[in-house]
């Protein structure tokens, strides 16, 4: 087979020079690590923005300590945050966390690093394209960050960028749109590469039903990125035309903004943007969660020492979920003036799409039954993922039913709903992935004690942040309020929770310090481990740590399903996929 040629090349890779090896590498593992570091830094940055916002929510109108002076006169005169700046921070927190943090970490980093190894491929199908998608992502990130320096600051119309507000917003919005073009391009290149790799480069014997679930999750995710992003690209084109060429795709006739009649031809519709945006953004939320579920599934199988319960329902549910995610988008728009026909359609599809999620979660929980559970650090994060995603998912139900969405729409209930999924959900799963695959990438293990401090501290703090949001939301407190609702009578009873949440958020930051130390110190000083420290079955553990250029020294062949642990009659409690025994 062709893999045999990789042996010769595998040994010759040292000669590539610094630039080709580290910066402009075409090796999927290096690119994966580049993605990992960049996106972790973006996560930290997005979190920092939020910590600054949480000061304003806890102590409205009081000067921000320490960093307040450095935020600039235009943003925070005398250290007191302006509403404009609050809106910038909010919009950029959402954008950065989603498009520059969680997706690149889940797909770009873990997908890139792990997926080719798991299917026994020497690299991605298009290594040059892979390198390009990283650098295009990087350019998108720089554009987004740089937009803070523009006059008027960064985009300030929410991550959803609803027109007409965004059409007439400051130039930061143009930068946002350009940044989105980069990120969309990067995702498109990446997803094409992923799908081709999974379909074409599977090792002999690796049939679709033998793929580790993580690979399935990446496959479905890639399809979502491939087909859902273009409509947003179309919408971004139209918004850019509105902003630069003076068209009015999203501007209706007869607008009067601050007393001035807007000089535009009119005839557009603000709702058009919302449809195109949510056509992307609902599938996008599954892009945020599927890689996380993939990681969790792998770790649960490994640490319960038994196969996943009903692998097939897991796979079929995921496919069905991906499919349905394209026809539920307007559940974000119930109160825009939707009639009964559409209302019925989208409520029904939303309820239907919750069923595969229930199945996925059921499979993962039931997989615990009968296991011999090792509470390693990755496993603890993976276990915590389950109820946290459960809370986030369940609170999606009242939002999905239009009548109950009325009081809840655009309140902190919605914020609580999705943060439970993306923060203690996705981010925990991603932490689990970092602890789990760190030995593969470095040959060393992260410290367990620090890991456990990180875990318990984060679990407690993160729940203290997001649980009160449901209480505030049910009381009717709107989101995106600069003063956290201080002037509203109906918010008074739950106002004091703002301080609780803020303190918890800052404490959460403190509990990330053990992680950051652990991460960097372990790269050099971590305990050295063998090729397969977790006694795992999937192919990434069948090569050295870190794997050589070309991944596998000898061609691999696959003989069985992905999670054959504790097979009755076997010599050890795990049977690697490539073990002919």
């Amino acid at each position, binding site marked *: 087979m062709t893999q045999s040629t990789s042996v010769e090349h595998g040994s010759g890779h040292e000669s590539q020079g610094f630039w080709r090896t580290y910066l402009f590498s075409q090796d999927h593992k290096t690119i994966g690590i580049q993605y990992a570091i960049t996106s972790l830094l973006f996560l930290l940055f997005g979190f920092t923005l939020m910590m600054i916002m949480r000061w304003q929510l806890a102590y409205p109108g009081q000067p921000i300590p320490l960093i307040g002076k450095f935020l600039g006169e235009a943003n925070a005169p005398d250290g007191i945050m302006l509403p404009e700046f609050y809106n910038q921070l909010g919009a950029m927190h959402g954008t950065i966390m989603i498009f520059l943090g969680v997706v690149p970490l889940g797909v770009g980093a873990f997908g890139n690093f792990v997926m080719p190894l798991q299917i026994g491929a020497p690299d991605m199908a298009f290594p040059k394209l892979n390198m390009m998608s990283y650098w295009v992502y990087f350019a998108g990130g720089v554009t987004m960050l740089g937009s803070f320096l523009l006059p008027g600051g960064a985009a300030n119309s929410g991550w959803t960028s609803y027109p007409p507000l965004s059409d007439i917003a400051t130039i930061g919005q143009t930068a946002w749109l350009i940044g989105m073009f980069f990120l969309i391009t990067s995702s498109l290149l990446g997803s094409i590469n992923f799908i081709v790799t999974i379909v074409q480069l599977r090792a002999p014997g690796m049939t679709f039903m033998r793929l580790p679930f993580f690979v399935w999750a990446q496959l479905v995710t890639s399809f979502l990125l491939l087909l859902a992003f273009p409509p947003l690209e179309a919408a971004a084109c139209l918004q850019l035309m509105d902003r630069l060429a003076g068209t009015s795709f999203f501007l209706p006739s007869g607008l009067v903004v601050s007393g001035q009649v807007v000089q535009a031809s009119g005839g557009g519709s603000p709702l058009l943007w919302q449809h195109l945006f949510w056509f992307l953004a609902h599938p996008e939320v599954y892009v945020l969660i599927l890689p996380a579920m993939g990681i969790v599934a792998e770790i649960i199988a490994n640490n319960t020492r038994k*196969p996943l319960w009903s692998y097939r329902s897991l796979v079929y549910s995921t496919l069905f979920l991906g499919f349905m995610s394209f026809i539920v988008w307007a559940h974000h728009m119930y109160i825009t003036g939707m009639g009964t026909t559409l209302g019925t359609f989208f409520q029904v599809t939303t309820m239907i799409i919750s069923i595969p999620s229930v199945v996925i979660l059921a499979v993962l929980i039931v997989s615990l039954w009968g296991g011999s*559970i090792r509470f390693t650090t990755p496993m603890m994060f993976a276990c915590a993922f389950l109820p946290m995603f459960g809370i986030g998912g369940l609170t999606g139900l009242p939002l999905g039913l239009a009548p109950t969405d009325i009081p809840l729409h655009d309140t902190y209930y919605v914020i609580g709903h999705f943060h439970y999924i993306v923060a203690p959900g996705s981010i925990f799963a991603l932490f689990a992935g970092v602890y789990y695959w760190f030995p593969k990438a470095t040959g060393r293990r992260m410290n367990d004690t620090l890991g456990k401090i990180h875990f318990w501290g984060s679990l407690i703090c993160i729940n203290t942040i997001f649980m009160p949001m449901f209480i505030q939301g049910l009381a*009717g407190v709107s989101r995106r309020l600069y*003063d956290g609702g201080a002037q509203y009578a109906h918010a008074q*009873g739950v106002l004091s929770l703002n301080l609780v949440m803020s303190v918890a958020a800052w404490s959460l930051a403190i509990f990330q310090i053990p992680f950051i130390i652990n991460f960097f110190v372990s790269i050099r000083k971590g305990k050295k481990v063998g090729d397969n420290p977790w006694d795992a079955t999937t192919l990434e553990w069948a090569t050295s740590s870190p794997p050589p250029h070309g991944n596998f020294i000898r061609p691999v062949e696959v003989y069985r399903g992905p999670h054959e*642990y504790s097979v009755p009659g076997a010599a050890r409690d795990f049977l690697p996929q490539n073990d002919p025994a």
Partner: protein
Amino acid sequence: MQEFLGLPPEASTYAHEIDGSMAMIHWLMFVLFAGWGAFYVYSLLRFRRSKNPAARYGGLKSKFPYVVVAAVAIFEGVALAAFDLPLWAKLVKDIPSEKDATVVRVVGEQFAWNFHYPGPDGIFGRTDISLVSPENPLGLDRNDPAAKDDITTVNQLVIPVNRPVIVRLTSKDMIHSFGIPYFRVKQDAVPGQSVRLSFTPTMTSDEVQEAVARFYRIDRATDTDKFSVFVAQQEYRDKEGNVLLAKGDGITPDVAGKLADAGIGEVRLGPYSPIEVACSQLCGLGHYRMRATVTVVTATGFQEWIKDQEAALQQ
């Protein structure tokens, strides 16, 4: 369940129905979470390595998880078909005849709510965007005969209790959202289109104020700014009988000090204008303060208010 969820007072006819639906779906959520949670915790404890050194290859044999999934699906189907779809249809379509209702045109703008009443003739006057000015935010053409008796207010909606209200909602600039938490009403105001919605208040503002009043601890150190939206719900006097805090008055540092002197540690406060319109769609830097008050009065109170407004118009 409603109390447990901390839902605010139900001050309109729909509020009760929506809350019913809300309670039902939260019951499902709690039951599911508790059921799976118990299973989850039990599994983690029972199957930890020290307790169960060898895993069982086959895992759970029973098919009960599928039964649970099917039960959830059925529950959701029933909730949809029997409750939520009919309720939604009612909310959207059940708009009474304009003759039997108080009709108000509501126009959102950065960052205020304009209310426009047709006046006694029941006909809205002509509006024209070229007439828009700071004094005339709606661009109402006062030369139009139908406009002569039209009443306009900013950030103050006055409506009678127990009579349907029909709102014709639109916006001048951005997308705003006309949300009244106590009525469980929320509807986006989209520029370029106008949408009709209807609700019936069932409590007057005074009743709501009474319902949400609570005792608050007050002493010398209290930051009275925190109480800026509150007024006293009853009178407080010192031993000599001097009024320290009259009903309907707010708390100032001075008053707080006097109350402390008189040994009064707790006062019953309610919000000054409890029912409010909260803009719930990001509409710019002033989004957070785009607040209007809703004053629900009795039918006679409403007639008087209209009369006062008309009198003011004549001058």
